[in-house]
């Protein structure tokens, strides 16, 4: 037996014309399957009519706020870790690139010579700076020299402190975004 369109009329609750209604009633007199479907749908629909909203346990918003804060901190940490990771990756990549360039353009003997040359040059430059600083200290009057040294060392310490604080904040909190 063909149950269409009766099944659709029963479960989709469409607005039926008088003819359609009579047609459905006639079909229901002879079709047990559609009668059962109609009874089933009426029961289901009745239960839907008595639907209830289930509320969360009290304190949902407070739990959300605590959760939100924890997630924000975790997100900032993840962001910081990502930043430091990519920074490190960049440095390593650049080093590999430079090393690769060196391997392709010169021999190991050349690198060793260049390395020793750079080291010697650095030692010589350091000695020059030391001589220059000694000269500056001797030329400047003692009072000015002490003041300068206090200022110089204070500035260096402050910059070091700022640098360390920035690194610490970056690694624990990440970059703040709104």
């Amino acid at each position, binding site marked *: 037996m063909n149950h269409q369109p009766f099944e659709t009329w029963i479960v989709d609750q469409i607005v039926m014309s008088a003819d359609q209604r009579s047609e459905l009633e006639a079909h229901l007199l002879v079709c047990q399957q559609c009668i059962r479907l109609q009874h*089933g749908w009426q029961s289901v629909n009745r239960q839907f009519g008595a639907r*209830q909203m289930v509320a969360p346990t009290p304190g949902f918003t407070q739990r959300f706020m605590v959760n*939100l804060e924890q997630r924000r901190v975790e997100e900032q940490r993840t962001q910081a870790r990502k930043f430091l990771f990519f920074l490190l990756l960049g440095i390593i990549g650049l080093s590999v690139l430079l090393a690769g360039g060196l391997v392709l353009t010169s021999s190991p003997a050349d690198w060793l010579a260049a390395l020793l040359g750079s080291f010697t040059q650095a030692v010589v430059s350091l000695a020059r700076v030391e001589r220059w600083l000694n000269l500056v200290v001797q030329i400047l009057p003692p009072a000015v020299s002490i003041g300068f040294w206090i200022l110089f060392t204070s500035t260096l310490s402050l910059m070091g402190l700022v640098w360390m604080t920035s690194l610490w904040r970056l690694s624990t909190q990440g970059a703040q975004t709104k």
Partner: protein
Amino acid sequence: LVVDTLEITWLLQAKQGDNEAFTRLVEQYQTPVYNLCYRMLSSVEEAEDAAQETFWRAYRSLNKYDVQRSFITWLLSIAAHYCIDQYRRRKVPVVDMDMFAEETLPDPSPTPEKEAGRLEEQRFLHRLVAGLPAQDRAAVIMRYWYDFSDEEIARALSLTVSAVKSRLHRTRLRLAQMWQSSQPEIVDPERTEYESPAF
């Protein structure tokens, strides 16, 4: 579920980073969001987690939200997508029957038999809904608990309107058939209360 001026003010404030305004929105919409998650996942613990996750996702995506759209539809769309993913991930469906008993309204003049029968019918419907495929379940919940139109359901579940119509039809048919075949003694309205099933 009407978007009022106060809600738009909260939304605009929240979009500018005002956590207090977002808290008000959470307060306002916690029940509909939680209810959808609970109907989808059938577990109190999972519903709580899913509702919390929904609000967190909404908080993070707030700058993408268009205030011209209904906020509740947007929120429920996030919740539904999350619950569908969660439901597909787990292998064994969970049905928390105790909660179904607590949520039902007390009958004003109950006889013990009537009350027991009513509760049993409620539980049975929830079992049937819990057995539906995730997307069909979401469509049914949106229609019957939130009175969403086909268009709203389609938008929320990223489906076409015709797909929603067809899913709802298929699901109603399935629910009616399952109800009738599994509980004939409860649901036959032709039979009187004390009549034997043999007649």
